[in-house]
């Protein structure tokens, strides 16, 4: 009989082996899923994971990689800080949308003026917008003990309605022949967030993401605040004993993750997406949850996980056009990855034992 036995100390090996094994397991299970859909599993996996990196069109796809990983990493690092502290912000999608809408509103308010400060101002507004949206569940939790999971999620739906209002109403492009959607911010030089080095996908959002990776790592490993975050998540009572103020922790973590999601939103809408349309958001806020876990809630891990997840997006789209693989398959594939990871995580704290130990 197999049973689990608690390790005396957490395993460092499994901390990093788990995501790798999880990716391998997901490839096998995903292959089976593709086979069930009537596709050649090897072909499908090759199309998703190999072609974008090394195939004929790699010159195009490689640039896409950073483009898609940037927002995922930016959002996931904010989420990871909170998750480590036991604060569950799952409404990053809403904070992302609000960041984009607020930032775009500020930027477009100057249209068609040209000033150097418009772009930074719009970015700042985006971060503040996301932060405000993230602070709503934080303040409600601190003041009224409401559950931040439910509130942050409800606010996603509210944000989506606001997005629709913006795209159809107050931000609608007056010269757009009544089509939904705002003016194109990436074609308005004062707000454009262009590709900095051609073909790399590197834009200001990606640069910010890389800086945030570095800062996040520094805070978590070297700074008192990072220590307090880890303490609050692992042993809340010990954190209070140490002097951590739990309310402050909630406000900072949700505010911070909201601001980072807002940044991701405004960088997206001033760059790759260009316009505020009812469906400009593509679920980065939710996928970032997977990225955060897959990256072990660790900034460097998140960077790698973000790149991998970006690859599944790009490969998934490619497979959709090339093999007729349904685009929803990628979403299911990503969910599966999270399942395997959560399951394998047990080995970090427990080991398998054979033989019957006790009557359970």
């Amino acid at each position, binding site marked *: 009989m197999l049973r689990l036995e608690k390790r005396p100390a957490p395993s460092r090996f499994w901390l990093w082996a788990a995501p790798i094994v999880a990716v391998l397991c997901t490839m096998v299970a995903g292959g089976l899923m593709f086979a069930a859909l009537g596709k050649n599993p090897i072909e499908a996996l090759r199309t998703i994971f190999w072609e974008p990196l090394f195939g004929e069109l790699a010159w195009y796809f490689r640039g896409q990689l950073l483009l898609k990983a940037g927002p995922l990493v930016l959002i996931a690092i904010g989420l990871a800080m909170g998750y480590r502290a036991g604060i569950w912000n799952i409404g990053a999608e809403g904070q992302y949308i609000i960041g984009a809408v607020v930032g775009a509103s500020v930027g477009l308010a100057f249209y068609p003026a040209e000033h150097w400060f418009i772009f930074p101002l719009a970015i700042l507004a985006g971060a503040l917008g996301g932060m405000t949206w993230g602070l709503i569940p934080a303040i409600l939790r601190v003041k009224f003990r409401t559950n931040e999971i439910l509130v942050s999620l409800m606010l996603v739906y509210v944000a989506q309605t606001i997005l629709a209002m913006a795209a159809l109403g107050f931000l609608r492009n007056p010269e757009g022949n009544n089509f939904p959607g705002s003016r194109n911010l990436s074609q308005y030089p004062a707000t454009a967030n262009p590709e900095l080095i051609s073909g790399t996908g590197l834009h200001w959002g990606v640069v910010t993401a890389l800086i945030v990776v570095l800062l996040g790592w520094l805070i978590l490993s070297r*700074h008192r605040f990072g220590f307090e975050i880890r303490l609050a998540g692992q042993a809340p009572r010990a954190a209070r004993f140490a002097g951590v103020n739990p309310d402050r922790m909630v406000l900072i973590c949700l505010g911070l993750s909201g601001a980072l999601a807002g940044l991701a939103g405004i960088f997206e809408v001033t760059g790759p997406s260009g316009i505020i349309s009812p469906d400009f958001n593509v679920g980065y806020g939710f996928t970032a949850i997977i990225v955060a876990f897959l990256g072990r809630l660790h900034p460097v891990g998140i960077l790698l996980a973000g790149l991998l997840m970006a690859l599944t997006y790009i490969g998934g789209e490619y497979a959709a056009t090339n093999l007729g693989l349904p685009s929803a398959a990628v979403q299911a594939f990503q969910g599966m990855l999270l399942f395997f990871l959560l399951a394998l995580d047990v080995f970090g704290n427990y080991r398998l034992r054979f033989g019957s130990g006790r009557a359970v």
Partner: protein
Amino acid sequence: MSDLLRIEGLGKTYPGVVANADVSFAIRPGEIHALLGENGAGKSTLVKMIYGLVRPDTGRMTLHAQAYAPTEPRAARASGVAMVFQHFNLFEALTVAENVALGMENPPPMKTLSARIAQVSGDYGLPLDPARRVGDLSAGERQRVEIIRCLLQSPRLLIMDEPTSVLTPQEVAILFATLRKLAAEGVSILYISHKLEEIRSLCDGATILRRGRVVASCTPRDKTAGELAEMMVGSALSAPARQPGAKGDVALEVAGLSLASPIAFGTALKDIRFAVRKGEVLGIAGVAGNGQDELLLALSGELRTAPGMVRIGGKDAGALRPTQRRALGLVAAPEERLGHAAAPDMTLTENALLSGALRRGLLGRGGFLRWGQAKDFASEIIASFDVRTPGPGAAARSLSGGNLQKFVVGRELLQSPSVVVVNQPTWGVDASAAASIRQALLDRAAQGAAVVVISQDLDELLEISDSFAALNGGRLSAPRPAQGLTVEEIGLMMGGAHGMEVAHASA
């Protein structure tokens, strides 16, 4: 007379730990048999095997002259074996009757059951209202729920695991009367304890365990407490050395401290007042759940109070947070080691940082951590308090209870504090570690700190305290000099018998 339960060669090994090896003894019907041993001697594993919670690796048991190998508690109960746990298996949000029903195989309808609970509780002097929520009961009352749950199943063997740690001396006397009455009715009792005087007054026979093995068996009445202690520990223990020094100024003053409890089913503090001078040890006794946790939280700063209620070194600290109180020189060690005093999954270095960051200068500029210094601090604690561990990189949860407690107490005492507050400093700690912790507290007092020790262990308090007070229902009795206090006086300070009465001797 034939034996009720006979145990032969029982053994149980966990990876890296031999919990029990070759344990043999027997219990006669109507006998009160003591299982004596230190924390970690293997008593709990042994009774869990008898109760079917753990399966033995070797050996066999016979009950009523028939092979007995329970695979689950249900089977043990069906064979007439019942157990009162040290950590009660109770459900706070449920009523007394529901809790009792959950411990029975085929409980009668609730109405009948309530009537039977009322009847049995009357018969044995254990008053209980079946309709009350267990969460609202005191520790002593909760124990009654456990006992009545057992008695309703007419057990042949009743196992009691450290039952007196939650009782006042008066309640202990009443419990013993109940147990004697049960024994007179023919029920065998396996009584687990490390309290020697209790065993000498109650038990007919004793089996003594050390490191998982039987080291002796005896009739406890024929031995002195000292002889029993030596058999249990393996060597004679010396009482801590005390140099009664002059007491200085008041270092900690609590006045009119009243506070609602943040804990579900907790106890509110009511108008607590005391003062502790430099060099003085104040012992605070009380049965668990009478406000000890709340008092520690209010002193450590995890709970803040109205201004003026807590003064450290003359400064008003009511509104200060834990870190600010540390700055004033107050350190604290909560009762729960894993999860409150220490973070289980973090290393000892990280745990040293947890409360020592400020007073040991482990924070650098801009709030960055000095990991090197933190590691040195952890190593210093390990060395000066003889913490057995591979090193500062070990996770807190990998340490045994005694070693982690030494680490936690050491971490606080090595911050040169002027006020020390500890809750249950030696709970679940083996005798030698307990002795060294007590000595360290006394040493710190001798160096001029005011020390507050909250404990349920009266012997410990009488050994180290200068003055003595007791918590009862969130109120603190007026502190009195510890010298010359009798156990009866202490018992009354702790609330006496809490309305219990001696079992009717009708059997």
